[in-house]
């Protein structure tokens, strides 16, 4: 199994979720993060002084998938999240040793 982490632009969450669902992915976990990268932040103004914001709002998706669909998930993520502008984000793939469904105690592929 693989543990896939994707950092994407916040407003791409809905299309990405839909694309993944179409692929048969049944679960994922999402959180709000701040990204630092090549894409530059904005300027905030406060009573005559400008402050630069280094961090931009990003959305992080985590999903555990079976090895078989790893490639398709990564590809789907990459396609659905792409705007072709700087700051589109990354997909990271880690090995997942075990997964358990809390409700039933099922493990492995069954748990996803």
């Amino acid at each position, binding site marked *: 199994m693989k543990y896939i982490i994707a950092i994407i632009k916040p407003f791409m969450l809905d299309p990405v979720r839909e694309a993944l669902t179409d692929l048969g992915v049944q679960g994922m976990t999402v959180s709000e993060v701040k990204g630092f990268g090549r894409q530059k932040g904005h*300027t*905030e*103004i*406060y*009573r*005559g*002084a400008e*402050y630069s914001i280094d961090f931009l709002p990003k959305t992080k998706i985590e999903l555990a998938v079976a090895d078989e669909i790893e490639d398709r998930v990564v590809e789907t993520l990459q396609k659905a999240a792409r705007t072709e502008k700087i700051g589109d984000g990354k997909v990271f793939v880690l090995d997942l040793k075990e997964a358990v469904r809390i409700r039933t105690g099922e493990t492995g592929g069954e748990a996803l």
Partner: protein
Amino acid sequence: MSLGAFKRLLPATLFGVLCLIAPEAFAQTAAAKLDGANTAWILTSTALVLLMTLPGLALFYGGLVRAQNVLSVLMHCFAIACIVSVLWLVAGYSLAFGDGGSVNKWIGGLSKAFLGGVGTGALSGTLPETVFFMFQMTFAIITPALVVGAYVERIKFGAVVLFTVLWLMLVYVPVAHWVWGGGWLGAMGVQDFAGGLVVHVTCGTAAFIVARELGPRRGFPREVQPPHAPGLVMMGAAMLWVGWYGFNGGSALAADGAAGMAITVTHISAATAAVTWMTIEWTRHGKPTLVGITTGAIAGLATITPASGFVGPVGAIVFGIVAALICYGAVGLVKFKLKVDDSLDVLAVHGVGGATGTLLTAVFGATAFGGLGLSKLSIAGQLGVQAIGVVAVLGFTAVVTLIICKVIKAVCGLRVEDEVEIEGLDIRSHGERAYLIR
């Protein structure tokens, strides 16, 4: 003389005039007649000015700090309101507005301590004296609350309490007496309709001194966090604006044309200053901000305050433009040139605004400049008197505030430890967190 004082004398004057016409009819009661309409308006004004501090100013200031300190700022304002109210009853009012006898030039007496002798029937001009007491109390509340802007995010709560007690009694009360309570500045002819000197110059000057004594926040000036909630700032500013109708309009102490003109010029100055500030930001940064436009409005309000009973609508436009230009400049000056962390710009907005307005009053209060012409002096003469007022109040406030700071440093210290500053005053000084939103 302020129009406030003028109003209070008016019945007496009228009384005199009327005695000549119909002596028998007015002999007993004319000078001391309660006016229900005026009472209704000043009761309302009192509520409006209380709203300025609770929650107006508290929100305005609370939104400007980091999220970890917002509750501490609300706490400062709330506690100050409570403490000042009690002190005002105990002795503040009496010392400010009571008769000081031989030292009346400098300070009032204690005959009205605990509102002694002031019953339901007691009058002050055409108002129940309790109403005048309460209206003035709301001014005494907001002035030390304005100083909060200087010391946020790093002061000990005990120091806030001690500072407020000492500063109210040793700075606010004497200055109020000098200008409005029968003291030397009023006698000299200083015109301060609603508190340019008494409220704004005192709080601005004190803010600067306290901020210097306390030292800047970590990271000042370049790494200070921007306001954590500009929406709260706007809510606070809106309530300050609405409440200012009571502050300036109520200072007429009557529901009449003077009150009407006062709220008109007050409003126009605020609006003009806000638009001007917005334009400056738009031109300089390409982005007009909400904090900016509201700060402009407050600058316009503070600046017109001393003049609000003396100038006309066109004068108000001038006040508004000047307020925004000067206060905008002052913000940068204090922060980046003088490098004093008067954190929420109390000196730059209130102090500078109040002083500017006090001086401009001499000019735009004159009929030649569309004013109501209530001064008997020439423009230059009045300007001189106003300048004396500014210098005296500024100097006195600076010296006494400095002494108070030194005393507090000796007694309990002014500033929290680094760790507390980093983690925030809310949790460390008050055991509370502002946003448990999930």
